């Protein structure tokens, strides 16, 4: 199971790639596997303000709809429009082309350190393997 070292993770199986004062958000390979084939992704418009743990959209499989929760607070600056036509990118490349939104972080420093909400790759891997 892929759990890239350079990302931060939440217990809701979202990942955060911090780059300066912006960050990219997606769901993990584990989450994509549990979901099954993604058929529809509902994402916010750019400009939306998010709190940490706030729902920013929905991802749907053939049988289910699941909320997506923001790993950190910030403002949405970009949305992956490729997912509108190719939701399967989330399954095929969850950490790359399956990215969902890009946010301008309210607190870049907090996002880079482990805290209550965010954990490192090792901790996330343990969480998932514990079942």
């Amino acid at each position, binding site marked *: 199971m892929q759990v890239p070292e350079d990302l931060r993770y939440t217990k809701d199986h979202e990942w955060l790639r911090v780059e300066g004062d912006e960050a990219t958000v997606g769901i993990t390979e584990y989450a994509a596997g*549990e979901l*099954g*084939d993604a*058929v*529809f992704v509902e994402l916010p418009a750019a400009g939306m303000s998010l709190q940490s743990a706030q729902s920013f959209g929905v991802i749907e*499989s*053939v*049988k289910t709809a699941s909320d997506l929760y923001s790993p950190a607070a910030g403002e949405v600056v970009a949305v992956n429009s490729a997912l509108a036509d190719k939701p399967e990118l989330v399954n095929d490349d969850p950490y790359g082309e399956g990215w969902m939104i890009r946010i301008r972080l309210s607190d870049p420093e907090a996002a880079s350190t482990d805290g209550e909400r965010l954990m490192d790759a090792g901790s996330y891997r343990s969480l998932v393997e514990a079942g």
Partner: protein
Amino acid sequence: MTEPATDLQRTALVERHRQLGARLIDFAGWEMPVQYQTGILEEHRAVRERVGLFDLSHMGEVWVSGPDAGDALAYALVSDPTRLAVGRAHYSMIVAEDGGIIDDLIVYRVADERFMVVPNASNRVAVVEALEQRIGGHDAAMDDASLRTSLVAVQGPRAAELLAPLTDVDLASLKYYAIAEGHAAGVPAHIARTGYTGEDGFELFVQWEDALPVWDRLLADGEKFGIIPSGLGARDTLRLEAGMPLYGNELDRDTNPFDAGLGRVVKLDKATDFVGRAALQDVADKGPDKQLVGIVVRGRGIARHGYPLHEDAGGDEVGVVTSGAPSPTLGVPIAMGYLPPADTEVGTMVDVAIRGSMVDAEIVPLPFYKRAG
């Protein structure tokens, strides 16, 4: 993910499913595969384009035999099984006195005085109880063979090609909705040309343990046809595309056959009285209170079971979605639902409420998909 409880029933094939990496869920109290590693979309496509293999051993098989077996079933069900030729089957329903549907099922006439009724897993107990009550007083006996019988289905355009060399039944002369007794993969079997997918295919009824050699042989010999095991998730999207109802969604105790557009199954003019006759005659005379329609979502979103249906342009809530999913074959979200009969003309636009937003949808004819030829 929820873990299945330890008191679930299991088919003879559960270890095969585990070995194949299936995702097992609690379905009607049975531990069943909803999908395999391949996923629902690929399993659905396999059935449409090649052949898929299903374990349906959770379903019921109830035998009704004796000189009055046909009449007993004509009393118990809405259809008239006395009209079935030997080796033929039909789709039917069992309703309550008020006309509400207890289950939809298939009746197979295996011999003059031997019928096999196949209820849904979720209603098996209720159907057995009702049948027992209703055939009492007729010269007929009932045998619930469900837990001694496995059911393996092979469905898709290549199914006949795959099965023909493995059976002594002449598949070329086994028509749709026919059943024959013989052997499959070396074991005794009743082979029916029925299914719930909208494709050609066969349902193989075998002794409980014989599911294993049948499954293994079909999977091995089917490799050259591109067979893959297919789970209940694909079974659901396949039947939805084919416009077939699912008990618990389109059919329930508060729905009668006429609501569901299945009045043709009810034989009001059959010689025998039957349970629910008066109520259903009333519906036939006055018209149903609701009507099942097919819907294609034209806006962005997926309509699902339970989502409200509104009159177009944010009008009143007038109905409900009973089943919905993205259609792998059509590439658009499809759904079935109930609307007031006056509002059901094909082409009518409606709104589906999806997470609070109104999304455009259009009423279309059923089925959404029909196989060629």
